[in-house]
């Protein structure tokens, strides 16, 4: 794993957590949307909070696809699940939601899972027919 790849992982985590938090913030300011008026969802897209959330979630999808091009799905999903932890912290301190002790225990479980998987290899090297992992750039090259 290079520094650049850790940055991609951080981008997945942060954009998913803040994207969802911004969506929740925007939808709270708009109020509940009735199933009888689904077009209100189109109107919600123009809310600045929701729009910012959608931009971040587009960034999430791009960085998620980038990670899947050099790492296994069963590595990327747990490794990027720290986003749930950040989302819970945002919900507690930014949106002022109640977070029970059991939820904090859930945060501990997720953190343990992330710590567990990121210590292992990220890519299953198959024989012919799949891309060879490319040469990793050195840190100085990445930062240049």
């Amino acid at each position: 794993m290079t520094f650049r790849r850790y940055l991609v992982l951080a981008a997945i985590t942060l954009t998913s957590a803040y994207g969802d938090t911004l969506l929740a913030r925007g939808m709270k300011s708009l109020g509940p949307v009735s199933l009888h008026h689904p077009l209100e969802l189109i109107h919600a897209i123009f809310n600045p909070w929701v729009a910012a959330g959608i931009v971040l979630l587009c960034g999430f999808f791009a960085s998620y696809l980038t990670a899947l091009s050099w790492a296994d799905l069963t590595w990327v999903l747990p490794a990027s699940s720290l986003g749930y932890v950040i989302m819970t912290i945002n919900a507690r301190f930014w949106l002022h939601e109640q977070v029970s002790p059991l939820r904090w225990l859930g945060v501990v479980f997720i953190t343990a899972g992330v710590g567990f998987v990121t210590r292992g290899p990220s890519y299953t090297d198959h024989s012919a027919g799949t891309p060879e992992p490319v040469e990793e750039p050195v840190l100085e090259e990445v930062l240049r």
Partner: protein
Amino acid sequence: MSTLQILATIAMIASIVLTATAGDILTASAMRQVGDLDAIRARRGLFGAIAAVLSNGRFGIGVVCLALSFFSLLFALSHRELSLIGPAATSLTFVTNAVAAKIFLKENVDRRRWTAALLVCAGVTLLAF
């Protein structure tokens, strides 16, 4: 909750989980076919990398499956509580993804990855309380 309502809830969660798993597996398989995006971007530029992804058939089907999963989620949320549907669907998808990745993508899902998937699955479930 009646037996019929329980069965309906299971069906709604199953449809979210199955379409999400299919979408994740297809997009992961597509990205494996495309190859390292950093290397492609270095050779062909950003638009070359975007074109390589968008021209992959599996990627298109994967995105359709992810869209179906999103609409299944919206449908389920219109009938049941978010605190039930959200964690149940997310945590089950972690497990089904691990099984499907082992079968279809031939990923090396060793004890470490199983433990991580189950820890995250348990953690997401606890977030419902």
